[in-house]
C-alpha cells in the first residue's frame, strides 16, 4: 500500500478523494442549489412538454416560429451571457476581498439584466399589439408562458444581484466571507443557463 494511502486511511480520509482539492459542495449557500435544482426541474418539464406537443403540430409550430424576432432573441442571449460574465467577475473580485470592484461588476450584471427586460418587453408589446395571447394557438401558449416564466426569474435574479451589490458597496464581504456573492451569482447563472436552452428550442429548432 502506498504511503499516502496508508496515511489517508489512518487519518480517516477517503483514499479516493485524498489529495483531491475539489470541494464537496458547489459555491454559495447549499439552499440556493436546492432551489436551483427545483427550478431546473420545472423548466426541464416545460421544455419536454413543448417538444412533445410540437410533435402533433409540427407545421403550426414551424409557421408561427417564423413570426418571432430572432434578432431580439440574439440581443437577449448576448445580454444574459454578458451579465453572467460580469457576475463571475464580481465573484472573483469578492474572493480577492475587493468589495468596490465586486459591487461595480454586479451592478453591471444587473444593468445587462435590465437590457434583457427592455428587449423582451418590446417583444411582448409587439405581440399584444397584434392581438396574440395564450389562447391564440399551442405555439404561442408555450412561447408566452415559457418566456414569461423565465422573465419573472430574470426579475428575481436582478433583485438578488442588486441586494448583493448594495452589500458589497457597503464593504459587506471579504476574501474569507463572500458566500452571498457566490449564492447570488449561482442563481443568476441558472437564469442564463435556462435561456441558453430556451433560445434555440423556441426560436431556431424547426
Amino acid at each position, binding site marked *: 500500500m502506498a504511503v499516502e494511502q496508508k496515511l489517508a486511511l489512518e487519518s480517516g480520509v477517503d483514499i479516493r478523494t485524498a489529495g483531491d482539492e475539489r470541494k*464537496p459542495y458547489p459555491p454559495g449557500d447549499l439552499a440556493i442549489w436546492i432551489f436551483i435544482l427545483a427550478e431546473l426541474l420545472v423548466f426541464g418539464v416545460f421544455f419536454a412538454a413543448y417538444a412533445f406537443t410540437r410533435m402533433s403540430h409540427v407545421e403550426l409550430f414551424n409557421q408561427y416560429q417564423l413570426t418571432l424576432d430572432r434578432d431580439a432573441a440574439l440581443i437577449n442571449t448576448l445580454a444574459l451571457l454578458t451579465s*453572467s460574465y460580469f457576475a463571475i467577475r464580481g465573484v472573483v473580485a469578492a474572493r480577492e476581498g475587493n468589495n468596490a470592484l465586486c459591487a461595480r461588476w454586479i451592478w453591471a450584471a444587473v444593468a445587462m439584466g435590465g437590457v434583457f427586460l427592455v428587449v423582451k418587453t418590446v417583444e411582448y408589446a409587439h405581440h399584444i399589439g397584434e392581438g396574440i395571447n395564450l389562447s391564440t394557438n399551442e405555439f404561442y401558449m408555450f412561447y408566452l408562458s415559457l418566456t414569461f416564466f423565465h422573465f419573472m426569474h430574470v426579475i428575481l435574479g436582478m433583485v438578488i444581484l442588486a441586494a448583493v451589490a448594495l452589500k458589497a458597496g457597503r464593504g459587506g464581504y471579504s476574501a474569507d466571507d463572500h458566500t452571498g456573492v457566490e449564492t447570488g451569482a449561482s442563481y443568476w447563472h441558472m437564469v442564463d443557463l435556462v435561456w441558453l436552452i430556451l433560445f434555440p428550442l423556441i426560436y431556431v429548432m*424547426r
Partner: protein
Amino acid sequence: MTTAGAARQLIRPCTLVYLVLVLLTGVTWAVGTAGLGGLPVSLLVLAFALLKGQMIGDWFMGLRGVRGIWRWVVAIWLLIPGGLVSLAFVLSDRG
C-alpha cells in the same frame, strides 16, 4: 515569460469561455436567420446549446471545482431534457 504565458495572464479562462459562448450563440442565430431546418440541423443546434450549458455549469457556476454528485448536476439536467427534446424531434421527423 513566454508569449503563451503572457497570453494566459491577459485572457482569464472565464473571459475565454465567454467568448466561445458568444461565438456559439452567433452560430445558432445564423442558422435560424438562414432559415435552416430539419432534424440534423436541429440536433446540431441543440448540441451547441447543451455544450454552452455545460460550459456555464463548469466555468461560471464553478462546478468544475466540485467533486461527487454536485459536479454533475448541470450535466444530468442538460442530458434529461436534452434527450427528451431530441427524442421528440426524431419522432416527429419520422412522421
